[in-house]
């Protein structure tokens, strides 16, 4: 048993090493567009993992991801922009005092973004997690909208509808994949621990879990808070990656994209979420070609704006109607499974 464990640790370490080498190679050899897509994949995986913890593993149907991301993004941006930059940026109203002079290194800013989102997760979770099912979805959606309306109106903190421009682009492959690994590690450990078993029991039958003496509310709140922490981290990384944010960015469509990754990958499967993150991000970028004018021989098909999202939403509908369990269902990749595969083949 222990040998197996040792082997798995080694293989994981090797995998991380390979990823590192790949990133090193990508940094030098790929063009900016491809690197950007790789960055987006990492951020999307972080976001989708956090939603999968909340929805896939705990069964809390939350539609508030855009709100947590907004909190993380704004917090982080306020911390990494220089005071001079902020003075230039806030043209309608000057930046409010503590925010105008605050500055922190990128790591601290990202963690602060996550913590702020987690704080809001507790504040909003305390009341709304008493609700179940679709009511919870609507309430969290309402929360995200409230955050967006505030971002639009709280001029001295968020610069209103203008948003932030020229946020320092500290975010790069190393940071994004680093955070992605941290998220992956934390969530895998959580889900496979006793804590994770409790979460799954709440998802499968909350009444039964309560009857077994589980304080379901406490567990739901913890899961929701951890999920919102990573959603905030994802938002913070995204802000620094895109270097511009404004309230319009955090519309419901953002939550929809993350939800789509989780559903496509398979609810309650971490492997699925990672695969879903890669597939959906690449698909979303690839679909941009649908909107470009297309030349076939002598014919020119004009690009149709909006077509990309038509195809995208149709594919979500297709998944939910015909392949509801997504890519992985609730299965997970593991080394044991991989080796088991070889052994079976060897024996036969």
């Amino acid at each position, binding site marked *: 048993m222990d040998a197996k464990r040792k082997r798995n640790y080694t293989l994981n370490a090797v995998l991380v090493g390979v990823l590192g080498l790949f990133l090193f190679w990508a940094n030098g050899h790929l063009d900016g567009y491809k690197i950007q897509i790789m960055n987006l994949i990492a951020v999307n995986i972080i976001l989708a993992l956090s939603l999968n913890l909340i929805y896939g593993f705990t069964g809390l149907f939350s539609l508030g991801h855009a709100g947590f991301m907004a909190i993380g993004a704004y917090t982080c941006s306020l911390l990494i922009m220089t005071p001079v930059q902020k003075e230039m940026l806030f043209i309608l109203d000057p930046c409010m005092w503590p925010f105008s002079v605050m500055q922190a290194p990128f790591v601290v800013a990202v963690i602060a973004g996550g913590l702020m989102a987690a704080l809001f997760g507790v504040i909003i979770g305390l009341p*709304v997690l008493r609700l179940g099912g679709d009511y919870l*979805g609507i*309430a969290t959606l*309402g929360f995200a909208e409230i955050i967006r*309306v505030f971002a639009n109106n709280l001029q001295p903190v968020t610069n209103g509808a203008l948003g932030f421009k020229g946020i320092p682009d500290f975010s790069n492959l190393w940071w994004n994949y680093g955070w992605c690994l941290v998220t992956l590690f934390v969530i895998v450990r959580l889900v496979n621990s006793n804590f994770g078993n409790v979460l799954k029991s709440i998802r499968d039958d909350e009444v039964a879990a309560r009857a077994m003496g589980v304080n379901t509310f406490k567990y739901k709140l913890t899961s929701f808070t951890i999920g919102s922490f990573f959603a905030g981290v994802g938002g913070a990384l995204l802000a620094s990656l895109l270097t511009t944010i404004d309230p319009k960015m955090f519309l419901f469509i953002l939550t*929809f994209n993350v939800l789509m990754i989780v559903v496509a990958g398979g609810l309650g499967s971490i492997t699925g979420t990672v695969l879903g993150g890669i597939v959906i991000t690449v698909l979303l970028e690839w679909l941009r070609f649908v909107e470009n004018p297309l030349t076939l021989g002598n014919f020119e098909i004009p690009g149709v704006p909006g077509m990309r999202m038509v195809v995208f*939403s*149709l594919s*979500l509908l297709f998944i939910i*109607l015909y392949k509801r369990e997504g890519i992985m269902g609730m299965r997970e990749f593991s080394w044991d499974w991989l080796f088991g595969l070889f052994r079976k083949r060897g024996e036969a």
Partner: protein
Amino acid sequence: MSFAMFVQHFFNALTLGSLYALIAIGYTMVYGILRLINFAHGEIFMLGAYFVFWGVTLLHLPWIVAVILSVIVTSFAGILVDRAAYRPLRDAPRISALISSIGVSFFLQNLAIVVFSAIPREVQRPDWLVTIIQFGKIRILPLTIVVPILSFILMLGLLYIVYRTKPGLGMRAISKDIETSRLMGVPVNRVIAITFGLGSALAAASGIMWALRYPQLQPIMGVIPGFKAFIAAVFGGIGSIQGAVVGGLILGFMEIMIVAFMPSLAGYRDAFAFVLLIIILLIRPTGLFGEKLEDKV
């Protein structure tokens, strides 16, 4: 605030409230029967407005014909959505249908961007609806009187259908217990289709009147009114038609009056409804007229 101003605000609020109420009825009927939050309802509302615009500007139909055609076409669109995206998921977990409805909502929005383009369109309104009439100091649009009256008539018609006709009986039966209704010979799928048709027709009517009141069409125009009407439905007690009407009116009055009395909060207008939603869900999740639902073990 002068009395004249108050009367004007009153009529504005009444108009907005009855428009919310019309949309909310669609949400509440579908939820009552399928326990599904139909996210695509706001897009049905948008389609209704666009179809009239098309009928009037492209096909040069008279207003009244365009309106009737649009309501009919839109209600078929609603039935089609149910058939394509919800019916295959009747036996799936409830959240699947909800995600499906979110998908339909984005699909219709983007289809509208492809077909109608994202450029906001201005609506040509019949003159008699927008010539201001004056009583002493009070100046009001005829529209703000016509809309509540029309909405009221539509609601009475709906209540007649639900409480006095056979499909209505079927709807009430299904909302109590879908399985038993099926066993008792209620044609469940047909009744559900009728429900979607009726709800969509009301949403179309609301969309058309909305476009007359706020004469700008855009593919995302249904999102915010859709959310707010849903909140109105929750406020009134989801599943109850009377509740949806009362909820819609209260929400309309709240929005207009808060902005009227506290203009500095105007920017936060869209947040009121959501704050109200969270408060309602915490204090009385079943709403004003809702029946108490208990967790079944």
